[in-house]
């Protein structure tokens, strides 16, 4: 993860948008990659997230939360919009597709992941992958992750434990083997 110091705008006592974008681009991309499990979709949504962030930059208040949390909230909103659009598209296409859920073929995790981890992540739902990326990959604390997810901290912890349990169930036998 690339950490870049944010440039503080002394006139407004808050970082500039360019520095925030540079510092948290990887965080947003990784988050969206986990949630969508599709690199190209993650790239599109990352771009859309930063465009939306630029448009709403005046709303960002450093006193109410970190830039990473705020960007992850925007990214989540963009991902949900994407999933809703996809769901509507599938409903329009066929009843079968609607019942079948997301295509397994759409889960195209990049080759950076090892085969074991990639296979295990594919079996998780987007909700599970989301809490994993927030708490484990982006190393957010419970409070911030719960804020992004819009749930209570205890619910966030519960959700993380269940997700990791499922992930370990898939990963451990293969790692042992």
């Amino acid at each position, binding site marked *: 993860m690339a950490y870049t110091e944010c440039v503080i705008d002394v006139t407004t006592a808050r970082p500039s948008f*360019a520095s925030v*974008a540079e510092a948290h681009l990887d965080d947003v*991309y990784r988050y969206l*990659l986990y949630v969508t499990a599709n690199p190209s979709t993650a790239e599109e949504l990352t771009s859309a997230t*930063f465009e939306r962030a630029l448009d709403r*930059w005046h709303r960002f208040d450093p006193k109410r939360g970190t830039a990473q949390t705020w960007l992850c909230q925007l990214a989540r909103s963009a991902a949900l919009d994407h999933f809703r659009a996809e769901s509507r598209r599938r409903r329009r296409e066929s009843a079968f597709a609607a019942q079948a859920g997301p295509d397994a073929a759409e889960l195209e995790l990049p080759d950076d992941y090892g085969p074991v981890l990639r296979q295990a992540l594919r079996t998780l739902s987007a*909700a599970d992958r989301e809490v994993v990326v927030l708490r484990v990959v982006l190393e957010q604390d419970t409070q911030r992750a719960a804020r992004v997810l*819009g749930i209570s901290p205890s619910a966030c912890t519960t959700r993380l434990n269940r997700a990791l349990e499922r992930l370990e169930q898939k990963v451990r036998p293969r790692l042992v083997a």
Partner: protein
Amino acid sequence: MSPDLATALRNETPVAPDALRERIALVAAAPPSGRRPFPVRRLLALGIPAALAASAVGAAVIGLASSNKPAPESAANAELSVESRDQARGRLRAPLRRSLAPIPAPAGAAESQGRAVIPGTNRAQDVQAYLTVLVDGTEDLSATTQRALRTTRRLGGYVVNVQYGTPEPTEGTAELRVRVPVSRVQAAVVQFSELGRILAQQVQISDLQQPLDELTRRIRRLERRAQNAKGAELARIKREIAALRRERVEVNRRAAFATVGLDLTTHEPEKKVVVPGRLERAIDDATGVLTAELAIGAYALIVAAPILLLLAGGYAAARAYRRFADQRLLERA
């Protein structure tokens, strides 16, 4: 969670590709939106005290503005009625130089019934007594008026004026102006006081002895001058002496009889309304305006509360449903 898994998750998760990095750099290079955030909290923090201050100032301004106007009509009427009553009495009382024992309607007036003391003296005096007596109903008013007239005649007096009226079936007044011999005015006051409950009584005595003595001295001086006068001078002095003697008779007549005013009424007089001062009226009006504002606010709150609760409930339900739908969407994805 095993450390290996966490490390694997962190290490194997790729970073953003260079192409995306360039795209985001281009996006970030654009100037951020120049729109300023709508300061809702700041507006509320300033707006609520400002609104309260404005309502208080408005109430104060309205109170001060209305306090410049004349006093309320009822108070003015009450004042006028009291004044006119006093003026009416003043017309009847003639020139009074000295007033003794003015007794306003006392709470314990019954205790002072007949207590008005009229000093007995050999000096010539103009005695005037006024009583207001409460009687029971119009039937009692008629009988009491008759009794008062009989009492006057029994005491050797005579009736100057009687005004009897019952404008309402249950209300009426009788105004009696009688003259009784001065030697019996004390008895007259006592007997009139026993006709009902005394609401007010007043006795006024003005001395007539001094003007009477002066008249006598002038007559004697003229009589002495008349002894040496002749012709037209004598005739003029005799005319002056005759005029002075007539005047002395008149004074003696006034001193011989006392005037007693007796007001019989079936209802207690209206109490004088205390007209509040300008500051009190301003405070009252401002308080009234503030109370009205509070009442309107409370009314609006009562009316709007169910609607606001429904809206809040709907908003909360919609938000909860949206979260649930989002979670379900992510779990199915």
